[in-house]
């Protein structure tokens, strides 16, 4: 399917630029994929597991296997063996493919023999969620549903999209599909590289469009080389997108169009917010947006998405009788705006009082010295849990550790109810960010 859709691209614009600068055009990719399909002919119409570590090789694997095999399970690089075994056994694969199965000489040695056309299949894609405390759930998609919100080629110069997410992640797949089907170029930064090295690569390859989480954006904005980026399209998503972040991004990249994409692996793309304000307009609750209907129930946001019909008994996510999916995001109506408060299941319980880690993090992030913040619940013998936080400071703000920690706690006390104030703020050099670009909070103890 994707291969067919790729064929309608302009042939003079590259499709992919690899980590080492290697350029691949649409006709070259077509030859490559055709050769790969003959190499893996036995897997046509079958169930395949893809376990690639290289995003660049995964890209060609996706084009090879979509429309070719019946079902495709994408394993995120770095998934622990036990989780791999668990999801694979449930899936029941006919074959497992790795980097080696897609590597090798990019110009196939055998001449391309035109055989019978491959009958196109609608391949079912199974994407694991990034579960932190349990085996990942497999979320079904197909290339059509995944590219539902892809924008057609824009007039003018095509975008050079930077891949900051792991390509197998939902957000990474969106960038992959948007660049492929939207007539743009996809830039693959070297995977083991440091953050500044990735930013350098992107600026050297002429990146004009970048999609990343708020955490990534904060780090990008603190990287000196980011001044060389000439971005025209900025997408933010995956974590709460707060107003200070939107303002910061817009002031640093004044020519860029800034879009907040609200999406998840379970729901797919929900909607996009382009007005530069955090949250989304209240009116969308009544009128819907982009053919998506939404409602608030029990404090969380539920979405009904065209083409995304999951049954109430699917066991993957909570779905009601009308087909609305529970996003698990807590929201609050604040005059004419709906604001995001945090994840439903991340709540910290301090002696019966509920605290959202995101709320605490937003306050910490408001302090001028703070670059990144992560709040979670620590076990406490009196209250069950108590809020603690880790903070990474902006460059140039490193000061005596105990002083800044006290100062941050005081800062929080001025803005939050006492039970929400972190009882401990630890300074760290950097915060762990997972392959989806989101801060990984430590697992919650629940009493």
């Amino acid at each position, binding site marked *: 399917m994707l291969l067919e859709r790729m064929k309608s691209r302009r042939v003079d614009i590259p499709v992919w630029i690899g980590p080492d600068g290697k350029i691949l055009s649409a006709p070259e990719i077509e030859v490559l994929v055709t050769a790969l399909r003959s190499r893996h002919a036995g897997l046509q119409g079958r169930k395949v597991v893809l376990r690639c570590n290289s995003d660049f090789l995964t890209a060609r694997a996706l084009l090879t296997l979509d429309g070719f095999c019946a079902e495709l399970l994408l394993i995120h690089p770095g998934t622990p063996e036990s989780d791999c075994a668990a999801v694979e056994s449930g899936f029941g694969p006919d074959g497992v493919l790795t980097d080696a199965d897609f590597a090798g000489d990019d110009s196939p040695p055998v001449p391309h023999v035109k055989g019978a056309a491959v009958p196109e299949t609608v391949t079912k894609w199974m994407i694991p969620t990034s579960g932190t405390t349990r085996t990942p759930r497999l979320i079904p998609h197909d290339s059509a549903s995944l590219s539902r919100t892809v924008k057609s080629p824009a007039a003018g110069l095509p975008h050079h999209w930077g891949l900051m997410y792991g390509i197998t992640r939902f957000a990474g797949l969106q960038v992959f599909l948007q660049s492929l089907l939207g007539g743009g170029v996809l830039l693959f930064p070297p995977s083991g590289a440091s953050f500044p090295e990735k930013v350098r690569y992107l600026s050297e390859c002429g990146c004009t469009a970048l999609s990343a989480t708020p955490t990534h954006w904060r780090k990008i904005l603190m990287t000196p080389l980011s001044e060389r980026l000439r971005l025209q399209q900025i997408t933010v998503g995956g974590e709460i997108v707060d107003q200070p972040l939107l303002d910061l991004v817009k002031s640093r990249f004044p020519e860029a169009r800034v879009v907040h994409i609200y999406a998840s692996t379970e729901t797919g793309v929900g909607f996009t917010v382009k007005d530069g304000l955090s949250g989304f307009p209240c009116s969308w609750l009544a009128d819907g947006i982009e053919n998506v209907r939404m409602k608030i129930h029990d404090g969380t946001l539920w979405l009904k998405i065209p083409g995304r019909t999951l049954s109430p008994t699917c066991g993957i996510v909570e779905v009601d009788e009308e087909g609305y999916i529970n996003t698990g995001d807590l929201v609050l109506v604040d005059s004419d705006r709906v604001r995001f408060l945090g994840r439903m299941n991340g709540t910290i319980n301090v*002696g019966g009082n509920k605290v959202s880690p995101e709320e605490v993090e937003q306050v910490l992030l408001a302090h001028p010295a703070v670059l990144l913040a992560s709040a979670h619940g620590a*076990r*406490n*013998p*009196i*209250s069950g849990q*108590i809020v603690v936080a880790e903070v990474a400071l902006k460059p140039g703000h490193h000061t005596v550790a105990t002083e800044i920690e006290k100062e941050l706690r005081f800062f929080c006390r001025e803005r939050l109810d*006492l039970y929400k104030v972190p009882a401990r703020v630890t300074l760290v050099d950097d915060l762990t960010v997972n392959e989806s670009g989101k801060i990984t909070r430590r697992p919650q103890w629940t009493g």
Partner: protein
Amino acid sequence: MREIILKEFMDVMSQANATLRTELSDEAVLLETGMDSLGFAILVAQLETKLGYDPFSLMDQPYYPVTFGDFVQIYERYRPDGNL
């Protein structure tokens, strides 16, 4: 040890804008001091940061101190060796 705990106790009281209702002698009943349960939770967390251990999590049987003296004693009893 008593001095450390006293200092942290007063610090938490000021965070909560609470006033000390009784003198903090060994016999002072904790629940009558003006410190509420959230305050105690914060105190235990702060002492863990300062001392490096939480005696309540080291106990086999949960034991809740009644007086200030009891509280200090718990910290002394469960103090890991060479730690102060």
